[in-house]
């Protein structure tokens, strides 16, 4: 309700400035002998929200800090709105940032925090007051504007930090795992809130996270990073359904690794021929990556035989859906099905497994074949 009111109000008042494109060109960053960024290329369209996703140490935070100017690049360029800012110090970059750690200035009220960037830009006091108030309203904290950080909850602090970053009308908004210090419920609320605000002000945004759910839920495009490089940059659904590499498939969502044989443009897994996402590749043994939700179960009859017959060894309740672990004798398969169906298969049940004929990705690194 309040969100709706804010939305219409802010649209008429906050007069957002034109969104700009942000380009990272061949960015390199070295820590000693470790290469944190190894030639990262990424273009974020005007007003777009790109999430960088990856395990810790993959260079995603380094990329963000290079855009912010908090670290210096060893090579490459950062271009914001057509302007090369690679050599500009952080305070002249015009990048609003929200940090993982609580970063409100403890000696200032929420309002003073939000107005700080405007004060640095020598905005007149009256205008400062107006804009800071507007921003706090945008994040739904107008009533808390006189509170200090220690009087605000973690979620509120991060919302003030968001308002503070946006108050300076930055060319680019940088979010460095802003939700990871919060508990689960607040996290998903604030995640949706960040997206709403971002769409409203239209600021080009780079969001760094290690939480795939967060990235998939909020981003226009998701960039999956590994060892200082982008493995794949695509819309969330594409990243999930058509992962470019085995790493992406396994990092985003759960994946079953099932041994099979590639023959004539399809992979044969346990007697089932599955189409390939990427055509081509020589015939021969390979590992198919199959999503748990592309597997279904039915009760085994006494007459059932074949390579897809197994025994349930675990049942994990996840809410609306459940994850069933099935032992096929020489392999273990994770199956994700609606909880209502899963209750029929307690541990020990003999089941017949079926693979949906979705296109799958294959990998040939034999070391990782499920035993």
């Amino acid at each position: 309700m309040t969100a709706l009111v804010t939305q219409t109000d802010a649209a008429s008042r906050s007069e957002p400035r034109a969104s700009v494109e942000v380009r990272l060109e061949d960015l390199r960053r070295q820590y000693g002998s470790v290469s944190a960024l190894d030639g990262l290329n990424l273009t974020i369209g005007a007003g777009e929200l790109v999430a960088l996703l990856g395990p810790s140490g993959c260079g995603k935070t380094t990329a963000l800090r290079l855009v912010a100017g908090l670290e210096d690049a060893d090579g490459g360029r950062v271009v914001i709105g057509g302007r090369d800012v690679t050599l500009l110090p952080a305070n002249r970059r015009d990048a609003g940032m929200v940090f993982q750690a609580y970063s409100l200035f403890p000696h200032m009220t929420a309002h003073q925090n939000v107005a700080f960037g405007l004060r640095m830009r020598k905005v007149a006091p009256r205008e400062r007051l107006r804009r800071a108030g507007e921003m706090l309203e945008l994040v739904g904290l107008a009533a808390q504007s006189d509170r200090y950080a220690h009087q605000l909850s973690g979620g509120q602090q991060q919302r003030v930090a968001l308002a503070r970053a946006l108050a300076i009308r930055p060319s680019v908004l940088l979010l460095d795992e802003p939700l990871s210090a919060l508990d689960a419920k607040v996290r998903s609320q604030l995640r949706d809130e960040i997206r709403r605000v971002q769409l409203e002000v239209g600021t080009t945004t780079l969001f760094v996270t290690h939480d795939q759910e967060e990235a998939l839920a909020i981003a226009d495009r998701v960039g999956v990073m590994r060892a200082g490089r982008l493995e794949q940059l695509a819309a969330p659904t594409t990243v999930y359904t058509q992962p470019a590499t085995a790493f992406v498939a396994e990092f985003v969502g759960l994946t079953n690794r099932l041994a099979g044989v590639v023959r004539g443009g399809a992979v044969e897994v346990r007697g089932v021929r599955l189409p390939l996402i990427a055509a081509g590749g020589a015939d021969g043994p390979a590992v198919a990556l199959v999503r748990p939700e592309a597997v279904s179960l039915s009760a085994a009859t006494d007459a059932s035989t074949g390579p897809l017959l197994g025994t349930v060894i675990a049942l994990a309740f996840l809410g609306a859906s459940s994850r069933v672990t099935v032992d096929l004798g020489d392999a273990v398969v994770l199956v994700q099905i609606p909880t209502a169906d899963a209750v029929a298969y307690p541990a020990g049940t003999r089941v017949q497994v079926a693979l949906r004929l979705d296109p799958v990705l294959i990998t040939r690194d034999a070391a990782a074949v499920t035993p």
Partner: protein
Amino acid sequence: MNRRRHRRLEPFRTIVLVVLGILFLVPIGAMVEFSTRGVGINSPRTLSSFTSIFSYPDLTGAIVASLELAAITSAAMLVLLLPTMVWVRLRVPRMVRVIEVLCLAPLTIPAIVLVVGLAPLYQWININLSDSILTLGFAYLILVLPYAYRSLDAGLSGVDVRTLSEAARSLGAGWATVVTRIIVPNMSSAVLNACLLSVAVVLGEFTIANLLNFENLQVAIATIGRANAGVSIAVAVASLLFVFVLLLALSFVPRPGSRRRRVRIGVL
């Protein structure tokens, strides 16, 4: 269990407090007693030693010089040390230990040894720059480093310097603004502490000033002590009281840090 241990410690604490209290208070009491004696054996107590402080022009000059030195040294210490410590913490953390050792070194060097090194320097300074007593500020800056460092270090570790300064910089603040508007306000009590310690050290300094032939407060007290013991003790008592009042004033300064340490995480 904690409470029981607490109770067991109670008598020990009391003893320590009483013993140390006696150790501190008896000499001060004796000084007060001595400085308020009249001339004859049975003459009544008098404050004439205290009131006649101001009839010694050398002494008042020395008091003013010492106060000026205290102010200069504190200011120079802050300007030099605080940005350095912040910078080292943020940009060259592997140098933190080096800076610490450097800053604590003066504690291990006796003043007399310092003077041996400083004497030729001061000779040069007196000839080429100035022979004002205020040039002692250079030497005192070194003397107060260990105390100031300890205090500022404690203050800085209570603040998330990295995140706060990065946040401020991304909002458009330069380094000077980061230090003065963001870091100092969040460690104000540590800064005050460092200043107070510096003041106390400077007001109590004798060796260096004496050996370099400058007349600061302590040197003046010693000189007058030879002519009029009563007045010299009166000045000593007064300077002790001055530092004590400063300390007391400091303890009434609100400490914003202590209120804010707790961070609540949770409900929106």
